[in-house]
């Protein structure tokens, strides 16, 4: 989430700091004893026009002049180091501060605070005017003219401790707190009778606290890292209430549709746009080992638990991965890696209230009583998040010559879903990367890289029976009654065509060429091409192609003058079946 103001101010500060910052941040050995920094005071003047929600989405961008101050101070004494920085850009919603403090080689504390706003759109709902007008589709914005500018602030602190005289043992702890608060737009819709869309202002106050703690053991050929994370999310803001419309015929205004909705004005005001409290806990364990023969073995295990504190529902996730590499002779290296993730999300029985109609031919009847073949509105929701993913790959790297390498491999990915019509998707992947570099005193430095990947996918994710119902009632219902004739649930159940946005075959090619004929010029050309196709749908063929060429040039015509020019073109084309049922209901 990078913002314009950040880029602007950072440019100023970095340029003002000049060589001091460069000296401080030089990689490698720590800077010698010393101190330095800067203090900046200035102003920021802006002139704005029209809507700022897009052009300054994360910027306060207040009209007129605002003060701006910033500072950075660092001091180094032996292995003790302190770095403090801060910036205030003339508005309490636009500031950031940080501190990095290291005491000897054993204790390091880093803390960071940032605050900014986020401009959200205010949907006037007028696009619904394009729908069928009159009493059938209408809208109300109960807060016209309100700007939705919630604030975001975050405080992150991390402490690292290395045990003196046992430097193989390290502990770390951290706390991250972030808050979103302020007004946002909340929308809801009343169905049957009219499609009545309403929008109100909702003041949110969402707070997240995240605690982490862990320990690391570092030995000569072996290391282990463990971390525990606990995250709590609470919404302290309001949950809006809505008194939904009576389920009446939108023209005749008779309460004949009372059994087609599970709630209406008879239930009184009801909450909507509610964000439930939640929590997450996670255990992570990683280990690495150097083996004889320059072989390396690493692995990780993660277990996480998510809980929705309002419903009590949750999901448990665990996963592991292992990786092994070993050189074969002087020019070859073999790598193998396996991963598995298992997600077990709670299933829940969704009990739908089944009110009766007040008037009309269904008076006194619930919808299932009026249409016995509909079954029950209540249902068991089996989570589609419950799944098991396993992958394995083997890869061989070869150093063909000096500055020339070839790497290729095969990967198998299996995805098993506990509760979905597409129960299993298998992917067979082949890939290779060729890299070469040539140094020529006449023609300059050249480097080439070519990447290719091919995926063959069996049974990718799709929407089964997504569109194209056949003609089921090519004549008006008796007396144009909505109660007689074809009902929606039969229309949906009769759809024939499957749809997807996932391929059965996918090719990816990425060539890159870099040329540096002199110390004052370099050029890089790159291209990314993807071709995806699914020709196993029952009624159509889905395709997508992506072309992404680009070029970067850097040149310095004078000793003190340089230019960087870059251009990227993104061209994407997709084809999919579009279907629309022909009816008036």
């Amino acid at each position: 989430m990078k913002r314009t103001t950040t880029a602007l101010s950072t440019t100023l500060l970095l340029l003002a700091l000049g060589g001091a910052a460069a000296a401080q941040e030089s990689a490698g050995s720590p800077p010698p004893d010393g101190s330095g920094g800067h203090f900046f005071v200035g102003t920021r003047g802006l002139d704005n026009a029209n809507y700022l929600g897009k052009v300054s989405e994360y910027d306060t961008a207040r009209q007129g002049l605002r003060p701006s101050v910033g500072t950075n101070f660092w001091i180094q004494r032996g292995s003790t180091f302190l770095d403090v920085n801060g910036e205030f850009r003339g508005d309490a919603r636009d500031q950031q501060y940080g501190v990095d403090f290291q005491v000897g080689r054993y204790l390091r504390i880093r803390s960071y605070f940032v605050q900014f706003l986020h401009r959200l759109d205010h949907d006037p709902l007028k696009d619904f005017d394009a729908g069928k007008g009159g009493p059938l589709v209408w809208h109300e914005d109960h807060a016209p003219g309100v700007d939705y500018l919630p604030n975001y602030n975050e405080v992150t602190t991390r402490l690292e401790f290395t045990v003196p005289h046992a430097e193989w043992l390290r502990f770390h702890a951290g706390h991250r707190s972030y808050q979103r608060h302020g007004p946002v737009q909340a929308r809801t819709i009343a169905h049957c009778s009219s499609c009545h869309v309403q929008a109100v202002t909702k003041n949110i106050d969402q707070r997240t606290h995240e605690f982490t703690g862990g320990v690391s053991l570092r030995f000569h050929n072996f290391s282990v890292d463990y971390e525990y994370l606990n995250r709590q999310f609470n919404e302290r803001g309001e949950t809006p209430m809505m008194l939904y419309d009576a389920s009446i015929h939108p023209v005749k205004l008779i309460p004949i549709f009372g059994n087609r909705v599970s709630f209406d004005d008879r239930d009184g005001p009801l909450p909507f746009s509610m964000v439930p409290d939640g929590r997450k806990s996670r255990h992570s364990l990683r280990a690495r080992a150097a083996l004889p023969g320059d072989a390396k073995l690493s692995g990780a295990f993660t277990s996480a638990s998510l809980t929705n504190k309002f419903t009590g529902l949750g999901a448990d996730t665990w996963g592991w991965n292992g990786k092994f590499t070993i050189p074969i002779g002087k020019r070859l290296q073999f790598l193998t890696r396996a991963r598995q993730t298992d997600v077990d999300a709670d299933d829940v029985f969704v009990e739908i209230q089944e009110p009766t109609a007040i008037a009309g031919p269904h008076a006194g009847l619930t919808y299932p009583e009026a249409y016995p073949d509909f079954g029950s509105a209540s249902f068991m929701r089996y989570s589609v998040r419950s799944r098991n993913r396993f992958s394995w790959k083997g890869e061989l790297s070869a150093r063909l010559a000096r500055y020339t390498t070839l790497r290729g491999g095969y990967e198998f990915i299996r995805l098993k879903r506990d509760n979905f019509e597409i129960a299993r998707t298998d992917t067979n992947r082949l890939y290779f990367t060729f890299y070469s570099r040539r140094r020529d005193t006449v023609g300059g430095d050249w480097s080439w890289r070519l990447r290719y990947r091919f995926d063959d996918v069996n049974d990718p994710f799709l929407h089964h029976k997504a569109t194209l119902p056949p003609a089921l009632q090519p004549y008006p219902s008796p007396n144009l009654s909505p109660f007689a004739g074809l009902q929606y649930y039969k229309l949906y159940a009769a759809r024939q065509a499957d749809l997807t946005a996932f391929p059965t075959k996918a090719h990816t090619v990425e060539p890159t060429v870099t040329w540096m004929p002199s110390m004052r010029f370099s050029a890089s050309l790159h291209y990314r091409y993807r071709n995806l196709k699914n020709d196993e749908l029952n009624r159509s063929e889905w395709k997508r192609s992506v072309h992404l060429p680009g070029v970067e040039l850097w040149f310095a015509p004078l000793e003190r003058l340089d230019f960087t020019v870059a251009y990227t073109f993104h061209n994407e084309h997709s084809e999919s079946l579009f279907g629309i049922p022909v009816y008036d209901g």
Partner: protein
Amino acid sequence: MTAGQFGSLSDMMTYSVRNHTAFIAANYQVSERFSLFANLVFNDGRGSLGNLELDPTQAEGAPPGFNYRDISEIGRYSALSIGRTQQMYGFNWEFAPNWVASVVGYYANYVDRHPWLFETDGRTAGVHGGISYIF
């Protein structure tokens, strides 16, 4: 279905996206105490649905008052066309030992050529300047 249900209309529909992004940066160290810089970013993005031609004769009939042939125009209705520009120009001048004056001119413009929910065109321009003491 009060007025009946006559099957479905369908066709293959395309979705096309074209984005152009260009970036230019220049740095000029005029002297040991004075430097100029400029950064410019241009982006033009377009996307639209298209190639849809629904033929009402595919269906066995149609309810009165519906014009399914017009739905073929959904591509024009959904077309996106956005232009964005960000420009920064400035200088740093070390006017005395340890004292640097910095000024950045900033300009950003956003143009939505096919507004959908509401007009989102916007422009912001200004100057960010000040003095730094380096120690």
